[in-house]
């Protein structure tokens, strides 16, 4: 005779394959791969360039380093960003090109040196912060309870996204063997209810633990600081703050770079 808890605890059953298919479709819709990693942005741009430039120009580009005069016109059209991307694409396609002139090989340029990458993420984060500020200026009436600070790069259902997902080479580039900066994934509420009922009593920023030095400053309508913490622990309970809207500045550090999220939060006790 066995305890029913043991029986059920030790049980496992493979769900039908259909579940993963549905799950993966939802992941594509709700968490498109492109908005998570900087690499994807690069790859997306590279694929776009690849499509436009096409195979012929490709050959031209390969000659660029040997015969400058040859490719000059084509190359000047490329932005600095896309030029460096050619390095990536080129290495990916090198196998197919080796048949012709295996000696010609364009050295992949520094696609994302640490500095570059960091500077990009700073810009992104600053953009986000400013987006949030703009968002918070709109009336609070129809706001959802939580605002996810997130960066969209490529619409999930765009043709390009699908093409990328379908391409085995490009898709593998999103793999785990490459270290990329973590996505900004903070969820900052725009409402909390510090009435002591145990539910939503504190101003809790989800995802905060990924970042160093979380600092929070909260001001009232008159721009007076009502709360300040240089090491925020998700503990602000709105003490001594009457119901109303407050503005916050949340500062956090990732890989040595300081970022800020600003927005409004409403205190509502009943």
């Amino acid at each position, binding site marked *: 005779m066995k305890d*029913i808890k043991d029986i059920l605890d030790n049980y496992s059953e493979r769900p039908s394959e259909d579940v993963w298919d549905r799950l993966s479709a939802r992941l594509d819709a709700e968490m498109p791969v492109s908005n998570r990693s900087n690499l994807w942005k690069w790859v997306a741009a590279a694929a776009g360039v690849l499509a436009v430039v096409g195979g012929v120009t490709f050959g031209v580009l390969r000659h660029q380093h040997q015969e400058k005069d040859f490719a000059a016109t084509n190359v000047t059209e490329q932005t600095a960003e896309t030029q460096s991307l050619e390095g990536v694409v080129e290495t990916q396609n090198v196998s197919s090109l080796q048949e012709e002139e295996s000696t010609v090989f364009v050295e992949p340029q520094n696609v994302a040196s640490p500095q570059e990458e960091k500077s990009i993420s700073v810009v992104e984060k600053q953009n986000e912060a400013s987006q949030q500020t703009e968002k918070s200026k709109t009336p609070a009436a129809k706001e959802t309870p939580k605002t996810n600070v997130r960066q969209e790069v490529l619409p999930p259902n765009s043709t390009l996204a699908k093409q990328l997902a379908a391409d085995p080479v490009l898709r593998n580039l999103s793999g785990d063997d490459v270290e990329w900066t973590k996505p900004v994934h903070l969820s900052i509420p725009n409402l909390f209810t510090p009435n002591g009922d145990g539910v939503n009593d504190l101003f809790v920023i989800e995802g905060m633990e990924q970042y160093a030095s979380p600092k929070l400053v909260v001001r009232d309508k008159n721009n007076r600081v009502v709360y300040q913490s240089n090491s925020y622990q998700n503990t602000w309970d709105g003490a001594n703050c009457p119901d109303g809207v407050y503005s916050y500045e949340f500062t956090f550090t990732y890989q040595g770079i300081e970022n800020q999220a600003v927005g409004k939060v409403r205190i509502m006790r009943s």
Partner: protein
Amino acid sequence: MREVDSELEKVIAGCLNNSRVSQRELYDRFASKMFAVCKRYASSDTEAEDMLMEGFMEVFKSISTFKKGSAFSTWIHSVMVNTAISHYRSVRRFRNELSETDLEFEIEASEDEKITTSLDAQLVLEVLQKMPDPQRTVFNMRVIDGYSFAEIAEELGKKEETMRVTYLRARKWLQAQLGESQES
């Protein structure tokens, strides 16, 4: 043991970067175990699959809240149970609310005695899926997932006393069912 852990850490890191390959790996690792959890809370396999999908969506979305160094299996289990509970909250209502007068005399029965059975898990699950609704959720939370009555009451927005009685009814019901199937 260490090796397995470091591999899991890699998969989790991949999931943090929203890598489909890693997400699939994580799913493959835990789907069977988690499906068993969902089946306990669901009234049918179809519903269990829906819960499983919701649960994994939640896992992937909130994987950044998982604290490195703690047990991942515990974390994913609790995410799944929470999904099952909110699923319950969203699709169901307490149909047969208990009246206050029922409470006092039912509460006499013992809670601590374990339900034992020689039946296998599949049969128990089959019976459990037939259990009427508030009972099944309360039973699962209490017996298998270790919630206190106070916690159950809070999660489901009901009185603690009501939860106790619901739980006792669930036990009686289950014992009757299991008894019957053992005899036959």
